């Protein structure tokens, strides 16, 4: 249901956008400072959205905002595409964003753009100076930006009605208040519908629909021995109409609650375990989310800015084409249009480049990377995978990731192989994990801390581990965590099973929340890892409540 017009047919219909265009041209033509590098690209993004943001708990509203969200971002590049103010650490870098008034007028948009561009331009010039002072580009420096011809498209999407979301969230949250007490239970709603406009001085003018409804029911349970166990159900769909029916959603929430209550009664994991681990269901997808994704997103890290309070930038793991990341025979593809009905899909990325299917891993070896128009050595630029929000550099990100093994084993065969591997460790059982805890959920209500929960491993804590015996018996245990996990563990996959798929929220440049982020679809098989370390993480009894909960 996507309609595309040439923008020339629509230009007269949007005086706000026209006024922004006028201000862009004025700024591009007139902004200059003595001895400053020339402004070679000015880009504006304008978001005109109707949005709902809500938190419900136990049948009541904690917070609810139902409003127009207007905002704009600016990107100022000075110098030349070969070497400009970007790609260098720090935050005063020429990318800025600000809110816009509730009622947009051409005059208000122009005035805001005037103020914002002025600040972003000055920052860009100063950042260029900082970069120039600290960084000498090597001869094979790939440049900072890939200039491409203008794109002019508008993709219209039908507005979606979010008026029933509040009632639904209240009802779901009421469901969580039935039954045994949780420490915290909430339903978060994020709903946006509208248009994100991008215009720049190359002549690009893109109108892309924003249509996303994300709901997350979350629950935190405090066990009697003080462990915090968190669980959630996430729905992220293009419009509310595409949510599951209310009965299904309530059933999913009830199941989550039941799972948590069962865990409350479960025994603690009390073994220092080294041996095979079978990742199934959501945990299978999560394994690739946490260990593979960062190895295929190709936008280079910013050159570190050596500031007086330490280096800024350069935090990303090095990404290498030609490195083995998976066993032989495995393939990984990201195609933003492979699931055309999924909320993450797009025909043009956030820089206006047509989306492409990219084979990232072939025969287990990295062959290609997800790119925006920021080049890297050996790759000139974009392959249509730029994802960004206002006021941030567009970076190559995953969108719809398909991880395929060389061979799918049956559940029985995987079990057999896991047992055989466990035997080599003198065990007659192995561990299975079907869900990891979501950090964005675990952080809810924990307050600000300068010390985050210890994350010595890139894999979050499992919801539970399941001890699987030779005869198929399963014992659910809580209070376990991974130890010493590195990305190379994916090369130690010794078997793959049924293909799973799930939706998760990839963090934006400034982090993730319960409903914000880039919706991302991933399909991956159950996998058996040859060796992992899993250790007990007992709770602190001092964290357990002394007083029994109130009666219902």
């Amino acid at each position, binding site marked *: 249901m996507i309609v595309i017009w040439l923008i020339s047919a629509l230009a007269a219909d949007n005086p706000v956008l026209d006024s922004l265009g006028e201000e862009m041209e004025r*700024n591009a033509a007139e*902004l200059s400072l003595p001895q400053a590098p020339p402004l070679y690209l000015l880009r504006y993004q304008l978001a005109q959205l109707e949005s709902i943001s809500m938190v419900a708990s136990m049948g*009541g509203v904690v917070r*609810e905002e139902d409003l127009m969200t207007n905002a704009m971002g600016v990107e100022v590049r000075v110098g030349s595409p070969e070497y400009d103010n970007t790609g260098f650490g720090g935050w005063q870098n020429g990318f800025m964003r600000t809110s816009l008034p*509730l009622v947009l007028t051409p005059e*208000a948009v122009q005035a805001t753009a005037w103020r914002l561009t002025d600040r972003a331009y000055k920052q860009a010039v100063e950042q260029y100076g900082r970069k120039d002072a600290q960084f000498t580009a090597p001869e094979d420096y790939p440049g900072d930006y890939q200039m491409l011809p203008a794109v002019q498209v508008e993709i219209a999407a039908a507005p979606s009605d979010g008026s029933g979301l509040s009632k639904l969230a209240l009802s779901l949250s009421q469901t969580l208040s039935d039954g045994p007490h949780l420490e915290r239970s909430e339903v978060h709603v994020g709903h946006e519908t509208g248009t994100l406009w991008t215009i720049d001085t190359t002549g690009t003018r893109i109108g892309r629909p924003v249509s996303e409804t994300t709901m997350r029911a979350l629950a935190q349970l405090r066990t009697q021995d003080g462990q915090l166990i968190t669980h959630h159900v996430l729905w992220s769909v293009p419009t509310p109409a595409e949510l599951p029916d209310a009965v299904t959603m309530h059933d999913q929430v009830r199941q989550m609650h039941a799972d948590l209550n069962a865990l409350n009664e479960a025994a603690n994991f009390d073994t220092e375990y080294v041996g095979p681990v079978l990742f199934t269901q959501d945990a299978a997808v999560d394994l690739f989310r946490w260990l593979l994704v960062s190895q295929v997103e190709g936008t280079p890290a910013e050159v570190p800015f050596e500031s007086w309070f330490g280096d800024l930038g350069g935090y990303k793991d090095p990404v290498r084409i030609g490195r083995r990341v998976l066993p032989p025979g495995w393939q990984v593809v990201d195609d933003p249009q492979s699931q055309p009905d999924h909320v993450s899909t797009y025909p043009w990325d956030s820089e206006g480049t047509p989306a492409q299917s990219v084979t990232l891993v072939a025969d287990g070896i990295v062959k290609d990377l997800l790119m925006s128009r920021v080049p890297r050595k050996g790759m000139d630029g974009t392959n249509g995978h730029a994802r960004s929000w206002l006021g941030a550099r567009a970076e190559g990100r995953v969108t719809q990731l398909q991880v395929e093994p060389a061979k799918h084993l049956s559940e029985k065969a995987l079990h057999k192989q896991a047992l055989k591997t466990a035997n080599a460790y003198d065990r007659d059982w192995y561990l299975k994990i079907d869900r990891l805890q979501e950090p964005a959920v675990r952080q809810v209500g924990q*307050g600000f801390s300068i010390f985050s929960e210890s994350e010595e491993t890139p894999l979050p804590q499992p919801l539970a581990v399941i001890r699987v015996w030779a005869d198929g018996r399963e014992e659910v245990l809580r209070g376990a965590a991974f130890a010493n996990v590195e990305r190379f563990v994916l090369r130690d996959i010794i078997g793959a099973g049924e293909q799973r798929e799930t939706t998760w929220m990839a963090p934006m440049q400034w982090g993730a929340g319960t409903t914000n982020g880039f919706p991302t679809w991933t399909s991956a098989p159950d996998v058996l890892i040859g060796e992992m370390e899993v250790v007990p993480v007992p709770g602190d009894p001092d964290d357990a409540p002394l007083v029994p909960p109130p009666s219902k």
Partner: protein
Amino acid sequence: MINILLYLSLAHAASPEDVVVAELTRVNDILQDQEEPPYYVAATVIDSTEINISARDGTLNESGETGRRTLDVDMRIGDTTLDNTHPLRGFSALDEDSRSPLYLAQDSDAALRHALWRELDARYRDAAERIVVVRANQNVKVAEIQRGQDFEQVKASVDRVQTPELDVDVQAWESTLVAISQALSDSPAIHIHEIALSAIREEKTFVDTDGSRLVHGRTHARVSLQASATAEDGDVFSVFEAIDVHLARSLPEADTLHQWALDAIRRMEDLHEAPRGEPYSGPVILEGQATGVFFHEVLGHRVEGHRQKREDEGQTFAKQVGYPILPPFISVVDDPTVSNLAGHDLNGFYAYDDEGSPAAPAQLVEDGIFRGFMMGRSPLDDFAHTNGHGRRSTGNLPTSRMGNTLITSSKTVTRAALRDQLLAEVRQQKLEYGYIVEDIEGGFTLTGRTMPNAFNVRATASWRVFADGRPDELVRGIDLVGTPLVAFGNLLAAGDDPKVFNGTCGAESGWVPVSAVAPSVLFSKLEFQLKEKGQERPPLLDKPAQDGAADGGDL
């Protein structure tokens, strides 16, 4: 006995009060079986509704209503002599007891009950840890200078006061604010502005184990105008106007607000032309609002009762009771019971403080003699009782804070006479000029011992008054600074023109609404220091021409 009284109240229909009473009682009963049970527990639920409307750049910026419910629990373990809230001396990671505000679902008894259970339990466990640390701290540190117990147990207060509903005509206000914003947008002298209406209704439910049960609240509305610009030298200068009232219907008419806009434009143009001041020491008149802020910072924060007990506080006036600290014609009282004065609603008005005590006047200075402190339920040896000044914003522990600080003079002169006295002082000190501080945006003070015990009153408009009769000259870029005892020693005279300052004060117990009412006063000597100056160039391009506005020219 307390528990029985609390339970009796449950005959009423369900209300936040009933839920709080029942759950607080249930949890407290259970905690009494602990080895170290709480000796005092209080819970405060605040239900608030807020309407915010604002305009900028000639259009509606924001218009919406939000509601929220918050919960605060105060838990005391030990006894009134020494409890878990006692300040720790030396560095300690447990030193502060502030926490993030706790938001909970509105209109849900189950959610309130659940939040009370969790919070009471969590606060008890925190308190049980802290009392151990407090005792260890007492053990290893030198003997403390004892200035009173940690807590005063008081007679319970029971009262239920109806809080008026919000009465904002949203559509009318939207139109008014947009029209005014359009006028401000047209001025090239203003780079950014906002005109806003904020109206809030708060209802507090306070319950404690002493038997207090209070339901009371406030409504408040503020219309404000803020405009600023950057000068060629980087100085960011601004104009701020605000009117605070208890009920939105008392806010000024649109004509008054339009006049604000015109005045703001004129003042911004004047400020742009005004030179930056220079460091200065000499005679100064503080006009009414500036005087109020001056007394708030210089005297008020130093006579908050709890500060007299902390070893890290400067305690400027701790031993001054009965001694003169101001000229004999000056008296100061902090009286939160005053709702309106000289036709102005006072922001610092309240019926009960955040510790459940009835508000009462605190006589601070009488005819120049220092008389006492503002007190919450943290007593001093010589001031053993609260006078209803224990205040906080949600998420913080209450401490003694100001409400309405009223400065009066038994000897006044006219404005003209005060100016003559200023000029006489200027001439006597053989200076070229003195200063009149006409407008301020606030101030701050440092009351501890590590940093200089100084104050800063942030002036936005000060006038040079020349001894040779030249016209007064507006200057920008200077702030009033000094130390309290020297400053008070230089107060010479007061005018007959009391003015009201309404604002919000931030300190360790959070942000609370306050007022100060004061006449203009003349000091023989005060000091100005240079205000920080922005280093950003003004916008490189002219402000875009607004529809119907003149072209953006050079400022």
